[in-house]
């Protein structure tokens, strides 16, 4: 007979409004970000080596930074980029940015300006953004002879001959280290052309998915170091002593994982009890 059946706790839990799930997830991810709950992530050898390569630069040395990713991999690669830029500026190392992904370069530029503002550095003197030129293989090879041949101007169109930072930089010979941030095949060309041909020292940050592919380069000592995924970024931040998105992101990542598993468990408990009730009522 029809009557108002009060829903049991488990039934209500079963049909919970999904917005409550959204909210719990939001809180779970936001809290570790806000409160900096992440302990330090102990660095592993590939990251230690990458850090040491930058650390080995002396004031006035030139670090070339290549932006070879776009928005889809920014959550993983931006924390590394920030960490490397901070380390470089703190050591008075001069930064030359360029990139082989036209649509990704604006991201790198934003990070460069942001981090530069934290330090007492000046555009054109301590750092420069050369921008993008099409045809990355040709660009890589040509820079071995003359950077100015390819990048006659910086991203704003200022001739590099007018930029103090570029006065002593003619080719790879004057670049002490290259740090590439990669989410695709460009890394293979950096190694194949610039490392093999010109003996350029280089280190890379890659997405977690790409890292295994880049590992052989590290094992063969073709590259100085390798930072992979958000975890690698967290390790790098530990090494420079400036916790950032990597360090904060890792606990957020873990918590969210555990939360989703928790959801599955709770959903199943609810399912178990309501099924008992359904079967009992029959």
């Amino acid at each position, binding site marked *: 007979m029809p009557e108002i059946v009060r829903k049991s706790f488990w039934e209500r839990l079963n049909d919970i409004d*999904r917005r409550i799930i959204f909210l719990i997830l939001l809180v779970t991810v936001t809290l570790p970000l806000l409160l900096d709950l992440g302990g330090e992530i102990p660095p*592993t*050898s590939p990251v230690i080596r990458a850090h040491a390569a930058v650390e080995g630069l002396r004031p006035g040395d030139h670090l070339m930074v290549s932006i070879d990713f776009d928005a889809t991999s920014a959550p993983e690669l931006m924390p590394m980029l920030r960490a490397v830029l901070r380390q470089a500026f703190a050591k008075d190392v001069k930064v030359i940015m360029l990139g082989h992904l036209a649509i990704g370069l604006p991201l790198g530029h934003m990070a460069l300006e942001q981090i530069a503002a934290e330090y007492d550095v000046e555009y054109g003197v301590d750092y420069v953004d050369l921008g993008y030129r099409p045809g990355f293989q040709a660009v890589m090879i040509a820079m071995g002879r003359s950077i100015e041949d390819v990048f006659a101007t910086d991203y704003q169109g200022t001739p590099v001959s007018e930029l103090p930072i570029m006065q002593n930089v003619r080719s790879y010979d004057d670049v002490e280290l290259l740090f590439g941030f990669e989410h695709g095949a460009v890394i293979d060309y950096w*190694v*194949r052309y610039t490392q*093999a*041909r010109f003996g350029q020292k280089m280190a890379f940050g890659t997405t977690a998915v790409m890292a295994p592919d880049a*590992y052989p380069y590290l*094992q063969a*000592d073709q590259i100085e170091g390798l930072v992979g995924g958000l975890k690698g970024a967290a390790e790098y931040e530990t090494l420079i002593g400036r916790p950032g998105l990597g360090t904060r992101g890792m606990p957020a990542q873990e918590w969210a994982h555990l939360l989703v598993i928790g959801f599955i468990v709770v959903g199943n408990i609810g399912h178990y009890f309501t099924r008992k009730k359904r079967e009992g009522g029959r």
Partner: protein
Amino acid sequence: MTRSRWASLIIVAIVLIGVPALTGGSAVLLDEPGTTDNGAAAPGEPPAPPCGVAAGDVPDDGGGAILVEWTHPERDAGLVRAYEILRYVAGEEPAVIGEALPSETSYVDGDARDGVEYQYVVRAVTPLGSAESTPSAPVSSAPQWFARSRLNVLILAGLFSAAVLLYVRRARRGIDLYVRKIPGLDAVDDAVGRATEMGRPVLYVPGIETVSEVGTLASLTILGHVARRVAQHGTPLEVPCADPIVMTTAQEIVRQSYTEVGEIDRYDPHRVAYLTYDQFGYTAGVDGIMVRERPEAVFLLGYFAAESLILAETGHAIGAIQIAGTKETSQLPFFVAACDYTLIGEELFAASSYLGREPVMLGSLVAQDLAKLWIVYLIVFAFAAGTIGALVSPDGTSFLTRLFEALRAWFG
């Protein structure tokens, strides 16, 4: 029932046995590879040159390419920066035409003129100077008429095509063919029917790829069927497209379906519309259509990437019946989790045959089954041959082992 339980039990047993075994065995994988010590003292003189330089025409190409290979005993010393490849024709000076990594022992010269005889020299470049090999024998490049490495593809594709045509012909002659139920496809008409009853529209999402992706073509053929049903019932049909070619093709198909059932006046081309080529812009737009138009039936058929779950969850939230299908194995789990019916891989391609129930089309399904059966036989045969061969003579000399290896080699 009991059989499925047995099957699951077997699988669980395999998992339980397999995993601990792996836990024990994978310790090596977890180790950090040590840094190799590279501090060997550099000898004070240039290394020995590369040797055994051999050049030959690149097979299976349209000409214009020569493959150069060499060996270099000194390579392990870690001294070599790069190899330079030099080329010349008789009577000319050798000139550098390219470079190879220290780890490489071959180079493809893609700039050869067919019929011209070239000789190659490989030069090892080290900080202590460079060393040149003796030149290779003269060779020339030539184009080929048939890519022999693709012979296996030709044979397999040829056999399969023949089977399809054969069974299509048989079907034409009126032989009755059985096809098992595909739940997702049986639900297509129900879903359209329910939308009609509720007076709500039908939303058809043909994926985010263009027509060069076969999954999109499959989706478009199913669209024809859905559009006919929709036209018969007079239910509104929305087809937002992410690709303009898909849009024009879909417009043709939908218009044709309306014409066939004599309802061309009801056809509104503005409902088969382009949104944007941007993956997530399209997703945002389709989500908007879902929450505002409240379709009762949602079809997500074709090529999908990460947006699959965004679309399927929004569709679930508005309470629509959802029928999804794709061949992208990475997206299938999300459709299975959020949709009422999911067409998995081949079922998507079977759909147009199945829905049409045209004997001609069903013939091609039978041919596909035949091909699957043969693939299964082949895999099982190879398994048996390889296993028995290995057990009979573990040193790999038995006839069966060689047969097994030959079979594998034939497949590439």
